[in-house]
């Protein structure tokens, strides 16, 4: 402890043997010998791991966002919120590993061994979220589910099986498990659930399980197919690493980085191999200048692929992401990397995954930023306004985005916190 002696005025000169805190002008540094007794706070421990969070945005009246107070306000002074234009945090009990958006509904899955592995919210008129028993009538199911509600799967080993991935269509959903195959639920008017088509079926209480992976219809004919059948054409014998489809066009990426396409080509999605408007059998697409493809994504009228170098190529019809002038393209057009944050300060930023909604695109970079572009249907882009976006624009999410699911008018993002 330092002793500071002060001789005050000459008349009453006495020595102060203690520390004395005279007021000093602001800005002069404290003497190092004085002890600092301020307590040290710890806000975060040394071994804290980042947490997973879920953010939702878009059209909320179907209940697809999972926040009931947007549709039915819980306090008299609040008003219903029709569009959520910026990302809003959705509270989940468990860490969500996979999410999928359909037309007005959402499925969230957690890959744990707990009994509740799957939550659904939104439209349920075709039982796309399973049977949600009502409070008042045990034989009726809710038409709209406003909050994430558990979806019960008829598993043989519910305490062992894990859900790996979920996927949603317009009015049906598919759930992939690790040991019990694929489960499907919802509308089956075209056999999309993989079970036999029943004319005028009432979809409210049906559930069916299939042991094979459900494949999109590329069988060479135009009638309905209600059972999963292997796809032929150019894809016979090819190892496929990823399949993507949305409206009526499908793309498959092989392990060698080649792209095969089939389905609707009305919007020039498959114009590199055919001039017809439909192709009922898969053909290899010779995409020039694209290189090895890692991932493909299909939208309603547009298509995007991502190559090994992290570059995004788009083609088709609609807002493609290269300004308002480019609304249609038959050949892949590269989206410039400057839009994804590449600059002299960050020359190595690349895109790590792409997704497509019905009329919009989403891209996630390796730095965890989410970029969206396309038609802003009912606020689905999450950029804070209702205007369409003609080039990639950042969505402000507080954290590192790991995955995103795009629906027609809403989106769900799986985010990891930074600390």
């Amino acid at each position, binding site marked *: 402890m330092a002793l500071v002696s002060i001789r005050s005025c000459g008349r009453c000169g006495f020595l102060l043997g203690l520390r004395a805190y005279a007021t000093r002008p602001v*800005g002069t*540094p404290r003497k190092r010998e004085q002890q600092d007794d301020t307590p040290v706070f710890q806000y975060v*421990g040394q071994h804290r791991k980042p947490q997973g969070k879920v953010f939702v945005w878009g059209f909320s009246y179907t209940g697809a966002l999972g926040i009931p107070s947007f549709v039915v306000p819980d306090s008299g002074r609040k008003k219903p919120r029709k569009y959520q234009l910026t990302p809003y945090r959705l509270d989940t009990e468990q860490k969500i590993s996979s999410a999928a958006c359909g037309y007005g509904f959402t499925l969230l899955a957690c890959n744990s061994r707990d009994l509740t592995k799957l939550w659904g919210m939104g439209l349920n008129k075709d039982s796309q979220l399973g049977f949600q028993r009502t409070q008042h009538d045990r034989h009726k199911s809710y038409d709209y589910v406003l909050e994430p509600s558990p979806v019960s799967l008829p598993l043989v080993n519910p305490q062992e099986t894990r859900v790996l991935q979920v996927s949603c269509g317009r009015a049906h959903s598919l759930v992939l498990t690790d040991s019990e195959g694929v489960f499907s639920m919802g509308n089956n008017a075209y056999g999309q659930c993989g079970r036999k088509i029943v004319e005028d079926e009432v979809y409210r209480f049906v559930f069916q399980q299939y042991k094979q992976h459900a494949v999109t219809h590329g069988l060479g004919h135009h009638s309905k197919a209600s059972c999963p059948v292997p796809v032929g054409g150019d894809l016979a014998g090819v190892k496929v690493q990823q399949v993507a489809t949305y409206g009526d066009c499908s793309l498959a990426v092989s392990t060698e980085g080649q792209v095969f396409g089939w389905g609707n080509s009305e919007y020039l999605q498959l114009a590199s191999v055919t001039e017809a408007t439909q192709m009922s059998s898969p053909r290899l697409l010779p995409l020039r200048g694209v290189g090895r493809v890692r991932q493909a994504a299909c939208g309603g009228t547009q298509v995007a692929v991502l190559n090994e170098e992290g570059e995004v190529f788009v083609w088709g019809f609609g807002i493609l992401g290269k300004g*308002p002038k480019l609304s249609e393209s038959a050949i892949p057009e590269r989206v410039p990397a400057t*839009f994804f944050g590449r600059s002299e300060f*960050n020359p190595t930023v690349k895109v790590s995954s792409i997704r497509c909604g019905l009329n919009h695109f989403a891209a996630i970079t390796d730095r965890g*930023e989410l970029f969206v572009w396309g038609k802003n249907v009912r606020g689905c882009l999450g950029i804070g306004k209702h*205007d369409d976006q003609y080039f990639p624009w950042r969505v402000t999410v507080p954290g590192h985005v790991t995955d995103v699911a795009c629906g027609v008018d809403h989106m769900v993002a799986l985010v990891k916190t*930074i600390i």
Partner: protein
Amino acid sequence: MHNYKSMKLMNFSEVTGPQFHKVHVGVGHRLDAFSSGVLVLGIGKGNGVLEHLCKSHVTRDYMLEGEFGKATDNFTHTGRVIEKTTYDHVTLDKLERVLAMIQGANQKALIMYSQVDLHTQEAYELAVRGLLYPHGKSPPILTGLRCIHFNPPHFTLEVQCVNETQKYLRKLIHEVGLELRTSAVCSGVRRTRDGPFKVENALTRQHWTAGSIIQAIAHFSKATRKIRKLEMYKQTAGQLNSNAQVQEQTRSQTDE
């Protein structure tokens, strides 16, 4: 015989003192008392160009030294300590993620304040080339941010910004600390570049003589001419306005 006229007292420099020419000196972008680095001065006719430099929205580079562990009232290490926190959970990885997030938000602000209609093809063309810049009034925006050195509790950031004040940069260090769930203070702000004027060409104390100053002015005559021309372009009306400025900026950027 003495020549009395030449012996007038006022002819002796010891009596009158050294003779000075009155020259007007102006200062460019301010640098406050806590900071150091490049300060641009204009002498005589150069003062007019100074004004154009201020208006032209050139970027400036800074090196910021920071220290984790405490928060003070004026965001510097000399202020009164308000709170002390632990910082053993901070790693370079987390710091870089926080900087990426801050930079992302600033990139967005850059385009939003550029006052261009984003639904036009011209806006897209400018955005591709990275030329969407705030031309009017804007809050401080960082165009580049990265961590140069990390040695907890000390770290150094390199920042490139427009329209900033040094107090804003010190507050930035404080905010980086907050994002990392700890606190940070700024222990130094050093400007390394102000538009085309870099720290390598700056005159240090020993060189504050007439000879070096004249040499420095000659060295930068090209740059000053460019800035003056920029202002002339600005005064002509129409589309030429933004295009030329944008070209000048790219040219001056490539020159650096």
